[in-house]
């Protein structure tokens, strides 16, 4: 066989493999970007609800709600506030349920967070894999209060920190033999609600 033709075939095969690899890698990267953006959107949706609820702890028209906390643990917080400023004080509960996986979840790490307002419960099932609530009795402190917080210590709380982690519902593996790799996004924020100010 003509040596030149053989070389041509080798080069053609090499170029074909290169193009296929590039196409696959770019496609995988795009998938990563899309999945990350999706998770970030989910995370922002939860952030917005938290930012709506938490700073209003203890709020009511023309005053402050007495005994604003009902429960304060690392997985559950329940408090009173007039969320919609309609004159009625609601009871709001945020609870992380690590043992309750959403029905559709393919990712085994995904759990459920529920938000309840006056008994109306909403499941948040957008890939939450961790959700921690911390309480601080001093502004800027790096040491959270020990939980669960007893009712006699509720009035010491001045800051509340939320930390959550979300993962994609499906794994993204470059190779079929790779371990399950889920796109992860996390967020941490400490709130200093007005009605928890000591003065």
């Amino acid at each position: 066989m003509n040596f030149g033709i053989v070389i041509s075939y080798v080069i053609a095969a090499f170029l074909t493999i290169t193009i296929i690899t590039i196409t696959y890698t770019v496609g995988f990267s795009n998938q990563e970007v899309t999945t990350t953006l999706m998770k970030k959107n989910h995370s922002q949706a939860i952030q917005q609800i938290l930012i709506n609820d938490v700073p209003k702890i203890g709020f009511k028209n023309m005053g402050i709600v007495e005994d604003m906390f009902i429960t304060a643990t690392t997985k559950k917080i329940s408090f009173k506030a007039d969320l919609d400023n309609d004159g009625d004080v609601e009871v709001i509960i945020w609870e992380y349920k690590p043992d309750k996986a959403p029905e559709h979840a393919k990712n085994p790490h995904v759990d459920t967070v529920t938000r309840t307002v006056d008994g109306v419960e909403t499941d948040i099932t957008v890939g939450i894999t961790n959700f921690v609530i911390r309480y601080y009795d001093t502004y800027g402190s790096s040491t959270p209060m020990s939980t669960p917080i007893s009712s006699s210590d509720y009035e010491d709380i001045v800051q509340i920190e939320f930390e959550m982690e979300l993962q994609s519902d499906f794994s993204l593996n470059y190779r079929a033999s790779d371990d399950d790799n889920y796109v992860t996004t996390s967020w941490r924020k400490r709130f200093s609600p007005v009605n928890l100010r000591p003065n």
Partner: protein
Amino acid sequence: MFAMIIVSTMALNANRFIQINNQTLIEGQLESQVVAYAQDIIEESRALAFDEETTYDNQGNSIVPVNIPTGFSFLGPDAGETDRTQYNDFDDYNGHEETVTINTVDYFVDVVVEYVETNDYETYTVAAGKSTLKRITVNIESNFLKKNIGGANTAYNFSFIRSYYAD
């Protein structure tokens, strides 16, 4: 030979594209945390008294200086206030610096508080003396957030102006 040059160029472009994708992903993730942390500090500072001279007495009443604004204190932490947990007024954060680690990423934080002019509603220039407006600016940087690869860190600045009368 020509085909190899074309494919090589494609491969290089694809690599660049993927690198930009990854950089954008990381920036997006970290920037939301930068915003959250800056808000934490601003909210925290707002929870404190406007000035050392307007802190609260034992009955929880705010003290009012005789002369406003000349009776206000100088900016920065006061005697005995060596860390953030001891700050008791808004401007104690002036000069505050810390490195905070969130999800294994280090963020370098420094805070500036200034008196600003009360009659300059467009630019809020820094006041020569004291005034009834104070501006807090939280500056945050991270080694993972750079203007260009290998370039300087991007500086994120967040400001809030607080008025003594609108407290």
